[in-house]
């Protein structure tokens, strides 16, 4: 039965996509919403929506990687989440939990304060700049992938990331001045 075989193939391919990018979607969700509870919900909803539209996405991607499409779904769902709640994250990323979870003891001893300042600075950036940095540094996406995920041109994305880093430098420098 051709139709069922096609469905099986699609399911297998979706399974591969899921396994390859679960960590990406979760990482994006976590840094985007700032807590594990909402990140889990966002990750679940992202993959359910991706499953629903997978065949069309495959057809329209013309062989290009689907990671930007997945992250775009998460991006849209996160925007809806905040729109529904009419607010941004109520608290910044839980520095203690995150840093302890993803860094070695040695790294923490050496640079915990510095990393915490960077994370805190990231949470102060406008949404689009923060998202671009999450995609670049947490997910390792290149400019083209980020551009597809955000629905921007490659050039605009390059400028966005450049400005995000410049602004973050400024935030960190201001914070450092304030603590002297």
């Amino acid at each position, binding site marked *: 039965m051709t139709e069922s075989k096609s469905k099986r193939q699609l399911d297998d391919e979706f399974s591969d996509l899921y396994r390859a990018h679960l960590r990406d979607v979760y990482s994006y969700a976590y840094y985007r919403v700032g807590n594990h509870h909402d990140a889990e919900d966002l990750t679940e909803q992202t993959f359910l929506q991706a499953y629903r539209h997978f065949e069309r996405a495959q057809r329209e991607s013309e062989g290009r990687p689907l990671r930007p499409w997945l992250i775009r779904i998460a991006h849209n769902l996160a925007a809806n989440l905040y729109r529904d709640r009419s607010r941004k994250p109520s608290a910044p990323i839980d520095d203690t939990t995150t840093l302890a979870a993803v860094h070695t003891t040695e790294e923490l001893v050496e640079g915990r304060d510095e990393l915490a300042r*960077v994370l805190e600075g990231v949470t102060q950036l406008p949404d689009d700049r923060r998202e671009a940095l999450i995609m670049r540094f947490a997910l390792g996406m290149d400019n083209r992938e980020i551009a597809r995920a955000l629905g921007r041109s490659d050039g605009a994305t390059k400028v966005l990331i450049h400005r995000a*880093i410049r602004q973050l430098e400024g935030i960190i420098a201001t914070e450092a001045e304030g603590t002297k």
Partner: protein
Amino acid sequence: MSGDVAPQLEHLLRQALAPVEPPDDLALRLERTLQSLSDLAAEELESWELRAMRDPRNWARPAAAVVVGGAAGAALVVLRARRHHPAAPARSGIGGARDVAERALRDVGTEARRVIRRG
């Protein structure tokens, strides 16, 4: 970028925004959900017509299909369906329970069909 500051900052950003491993139970739950959705044959779901839902004798079959699909997956689909009626008033008695069950099954069928439908 401004001098040596940006490369140093980029190095810190890579450390600060290190990938976060999803909790094991999330991965397990998602895999079971996706598997159960995949297992539910489209033909079976298509039979979940509303007219069938009106006859209580037919409730057992689709409900069993959902249960066979996996408790986690079924729970998630039911939860999503429940969101459509967040303010549904609590009703008591056999009639109320039947309404709730019928509505829930209808929503589950709709949601599951939506999720599994390809194009």
